[in-house]
Every structure is written in C-alpha cells, then in structure tokens.
C-alpha cells in the first residue's frame, strides 16, 4: 500500500497557478503565498489555515479510507488510496485558488470525484485509481471540455473566473 497521508504541509508552502487574462496579453496570478516568515508564529498571522470548505472536503475524503468494496450495496469498488491521495493533494494545492468547490464523493470504480458549481457553470474532476485525472466542464448542462487536470487546470480556473 502506498503512503497516503505522509505529505508534509511544507511541501505546499507556495502554490502558484497562472491564468491567462482575457486578452491573453497579461497574466493574472491566482496565487497563495504561504510565506513562512515564521512557521508556528503566534505573532504573525496563521498562514496554515484552509477555507472551511476545503477542511470539510478533506474530512470527507479521509473518511473514504474506511469504505470497503460494495460500500453502496451495488458492487462499487472502495476508493483507492491513489485516488484519495491525489484528490487531497489537489485540494491542498488549490485551497486558496478561486474555485467554487461544491461537492465531493467516491465513485463506483474506486475514483474520487470533486464537483465545482457556480451558476450555470459546473465542473467535475475525477481522480482515478490508475493516477489519471479527468476534467469535464459544463455550461447549461452541455459539456464544453473533456480533458484532464494536468493539461487544463488553467482552463478550469479561467472558466469560473471569467
């Protein structure tokens, strides 16, 4: 079994996600600098906090460890360690990126799905057992993009921040 929860938070000390602006001539930086001026300082602001929705998602995610095969009584496969770990990494890495986190759930094939939703726009991200990811962008229930996180993270951010 692979390590699931051994990532140190310090690994995520700086997280920068770049998005092309509308005219593609300038860059808008969605960034979170956990500028560790003083880790564990009680004087400087606590920079290790996560938004409540991220905390809630991580709590749910960690509870998936306890799910066994057939957890839905319809033969679903238990969420894989890889799926849980990669979903967790995504949440930590993008905790302060402007994304409308909406829902998280285990899938029937051992994957983890994170849903984002804002008005008529929605996105589904699948973290699969084979380490792959799938990203689907929807508007008015029409699928506009079918890709993966690695190739389309910028599109995802742009999609919800236009």
């Amino acid at each position: 079994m692979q390590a699931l929860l051994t990532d140190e938070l310090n690994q995520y000390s700086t997280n920068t996600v770049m998005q092309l602006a509308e005219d593609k001539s300038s860059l808008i930086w969605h960034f979170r600098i956990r500028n560790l001026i003083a880790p564990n300082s009680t004087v400087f602001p606590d920079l290790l906090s996560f938004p409540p929705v991220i905390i809630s998602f991580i709590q749910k995610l960690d509870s998936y460890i306890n799910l066994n095969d057939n957890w839905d009584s319809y033969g679903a496969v238990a969420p894989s360690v890889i799926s849980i770990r990669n979903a967790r990494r995504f949440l930590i890495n993008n905790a302060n990126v402007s994304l409308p986190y909406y829902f998280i759930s285990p899938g029937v094939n051992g994957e983890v799905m994170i849903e984002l939703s804002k008005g008529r726009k929605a996105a589904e991200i699948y973290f699969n057992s084979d380490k792959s990811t799938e990203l689907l962008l929807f508007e008015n229930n029409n699928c506009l993009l079918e890709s993966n996180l690695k190739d389309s993270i910028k599109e995802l951010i742009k999609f919800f921040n236009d």
Partner: protein
Amino acid sequence: MYMKKLPNAPLQEVIFEGKWELSLDQQTSAFIDPEFQFALGKFQHVISSRFPYHKSKIPGDIPLQFLGHQPIHQFWTGEGVWPVIQLGPGVITVNDTEKNYEWDDVFFPLVKETLFNVKNAYVNDLSFISYTLRYIDVVKIKDYEFSNWFDFVKDNINFQFSNGYPLPGTLHNFKIEQSFRTEDAGLIEIGFSNGQDNQKEDIFIWQTAVTGRKPLFIEGLMEWLVLAHSHCSRIFKETCKEDFYASFVNR
C-alpha cells in the same frame, strides 16, 4: 557591561520549535503520533495553572494524522498574553515576545520546563528529529533615517545588496534569505525583508534561525539550545551596525 536584555530590543517574537519522530500506521500508511491524545491531557493538566487559556487552532474535527507536525492547541498565559505554548502531533513550540524575553532566566527555563513536561506526558522517549530556535526582529523605519531600502540596509546592517542592471522602478519589496551549514548546530538561516506591521507602518524585518536535524533526546536538545542561542546572539550583534545596535540600547 554585559546586558541581559536590551532596553529597546527589536525582538518581535522568539520561537522554539521541536518536532519528534512520528510512527508509521500500518493500516493507513500515515505517519501519526499514537500517544498524542493521551499525552495532550497529561500535558494540559500539568501546565494549566500557568497557561490557563486554551485555544484550538484548527476548527472542526480534522483527523489528526493529517496534521502531523502541525500545532493544534495553544496554551496562553492569558487571553492574548504571551508566552504561548503550542502542541500538536509530533510538535511543540514555545513562543514569546520582547516584553517577557530574557534568555537565561525566562525563555530558556521555560523551554526546558516545557520539554520535560512533554517528555513526562509521553510514555515513550521522544526522539527529536527537527528543532529550531528562531528570532524575528523588527524596526519601524520611521524611527530611522530612510531614503530607500538599499541605503537603509547598507547603513544599518553589515550586509548590502544591489542590482547590477538598471532598476525598472522603485524597490517595493525585498526578501533576502541565506542559510549556512555549521558543523555543530545545524543550519543557520539569516533573512532580511521589508513589510508592514498591523498599523500599516513600514518595517524592516530580520530573522535569525538555527535548525538542527540530528536526532536528539531532550537532554541533548538542551545542549543544542544553548549552542543555538549563542549563535543567534552573536549573529544579531554582528549583523547590526554600531549605531543601529546602539539604538536598541539608547533610543
């Protein structure tokens, strides 16, 4: 004459942080502190008379294994009153500010006492795998002559920096960090940066930290602390120019 404490010390915060080894949980493959919950109760009981004000840093009920080496509980002397002790799975910190700080009679004994309280709260001996003594010093630039950051640093600190190309504008922010490996104490980090305090006043920040990573039990850690402090103390004096240092004595 040897002064135990500078009358106008620029110290913003001093932090001791010790991290001990976590155990690998076979079931979840997570690194956890299996004794944490039990030790927390014992630890809190012992320090509660001196640190009665408890604050949890983490809202909700995050699984503890997720927070390895992250402080979860703060124990304050009073509401908003330092010193503060922070405890989490595999980590203890002691934090204090200039108001109370004095090494020989206050901070060092407090760290020592805290570490032994932690030791007594755990059944197994704790092996510390990372430990840092960090000083954060701050001055308001309005208290000094200031024309630009280059000159400010050059005039007050035994350090200077410059750009070897035309400046594209006025220097707005800077953060310079250096680390030096020593044979005895570990890694020494020295950093200079600018910033603003909570009154939005421009400040100059410099940090000196010593971090050791050779596994030590508490007794060895005590010896390391003395060494780390001597490094920090010496470096503080050596980095400050004479007039700058004098401003902490006379201002």
